[in-house]
């Protein structure tokens, strides 16, 4: 780099540029926060959903599955699993039955542990997954298979 561009100029651009872009990021975050209530389905966060999210977290579901595409890639996407498995026509029953039936024990196949959830806890997990499936995700995933 030429000698007319000095280190102190580089330093000033670093501090100025970083502060500017961080403030811009904050501004966009504020705008996002205002825009979210129309998109994030938060009006449907019930006590069941809150409990379901906690069960989701304390069994480390994200360690195998993705949720809205984030997580591990070992097991299917669950952001839209409620809809994939029948939605309001049977989605809940399918999910609960599936969780209860684990592990399959089929030799050589990927296994999901049994987390010994109570009926109430299973309902909470379903409530959480239903809530997630109704978040406006800009039409992601491309199709129902997730």
């Amino acid at each position, binding site marked *: *780099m030429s000698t007319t561009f000095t280190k102190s100029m580089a330093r000033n651009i670093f501090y100025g540029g970083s502060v500017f872009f961080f403030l811009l990021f904050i501004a966009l*975050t504020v705008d*996002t926060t205002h825009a979210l209530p129309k998109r994030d389905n938060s009006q449907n966060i019930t006590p069941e959903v809150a409990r379901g999210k906690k069960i989701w977290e304390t069994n480390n579901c*994200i360690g195998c599955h993705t949720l809205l595409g984030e997580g591990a890639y070992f097991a299917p996407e669950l952001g839209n699993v409620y809809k994939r498995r029948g939605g309001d026509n049977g989605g809940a029953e399918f999910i609960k039955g599936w969780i209860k039936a684990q592990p399959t*024990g089929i030799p050589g196949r990927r296994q999901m542990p049994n987390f010994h959830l109570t009926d109430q806890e299973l309902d909470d997990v379903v409530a959480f997954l239903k809530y997630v499936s109704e978040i406006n995700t800009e039409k992601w995933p491309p199709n129902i298979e997730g």
Partner: protein
Amino acid sequence: MQYKSQAVAKPYFIAAIGLFIGQIVFGLVMGLQYVVGDFLFPAIPFNIARMVHTNLLIVWLLFGFMGSAYYLIPEETENELYSPKLAIITFWIFLVAGALTVVGYLFVPYSTLAEWTGNNILATMGREFLEQPLITKVGIVIVALSFLFNICMTLLKGRKTSISLVLVLGLVGLAVFFLFSFYNPTNLVLDKYYWWWVVHLWVEGVWELILGAILAFVLIKVTGVDREVIEKWLYVIVTMTLITGILGTGHHYYWIGAPEYWQWWGSVFSALEPIPFFMMTIFAFNMVNRRRREHPNKAAVLWALGTGVLAFLGAGVWGFLHTLAPVNYYTHGTQMTASHGHLAFYGAYVCVVITMISYAMPILRGRAANSNKAQVVEMWSFWLMSVSIVFITLFLTAAGIVQVWLQRYSDAPMAFMAVQDKAAIFYWMREGAGVIFLIGLLTYVASFFIKGETKAAA
């Protein structure tokens, strides 16, 4: 070494390498579970192995960063560390806390661990990479504060170089953004939005400052190029990092419920994120070509050049491949992400920590560089690990393409597990490359035990 207190870096480096081995062993377990699904089930389910794999990575890199800072700061500030004793105390606290956490993951059901460790007081667990129990997270904050106190006090009483300022800024940012791991709202969109303030603003933000500073330090030492030149490069690189990286966070906000405009902000700015990495490559090669001395530590120079190239490939090129919103629509949450993650972490952070260890460890052991024989073995380990991680990346990319093609882009999309069977060949090859990587890592460890003629440290 120039300052006695630099010696505290040594246990940090040794712990880092030890945990690195653990990380790779668990990586191999997971890799095998991808194709032999019931391997080690139910003793170590996949999610537990993954938690150990990723958490060990984070912790050993943090050990590496802290060791690097303890080595670098006295030399840059030209005075002894404020408190070597505190540095050793925090080392043991961090190591014991880290080990206990891993033991907890492996031997206690995760939900029980959550109950025991205060997750009911403040729920922070069960989110990717932030799985640590509340008490571990609090421990990390305490360790980080004590570490920063020690580093800042040393900096305050000594010479303030640009390298140490950028390093400290990166370390302070690391501590500050970690605080968002304590924020876990029930609203999943908000949860994810701020989760990225830890994850993205770490690895595509402040960690790059740490990376740049460490690389600049080693390049000054091994090339003898004028500090003014190197520090000017450093400023330009970290400027580009933050200008592109902060708004680049938007590339994680496409499909999680955030407004649509993030597809524009995220695409435009994250598409520019390869620039600082490209500059880092040019920087490293340029400085080595303009070297004013022939440093006897050839292995460290190789690692420094490797950092530039592989960080650019992994973070830059492989990041760009799937960062534009219309592409990411199909690749999001597939093995594409995993492929990018592996090469980016290796190229940027694994390589830079090993660059520092490679440069500093011989000096900490009382010689300018290791014997020629030891260096040859170390360079073999560089090539074994680097080539095998590139192949891991290529195989995961292939698996990702299979996923996109059959499950996402197709008119008749197949179910997740059916597609996984189709990609199995690539998972097998990935596992093979992983075995080579482990051999490379063991070769690296072996290089520390090879004797031979050495020159005393200057």
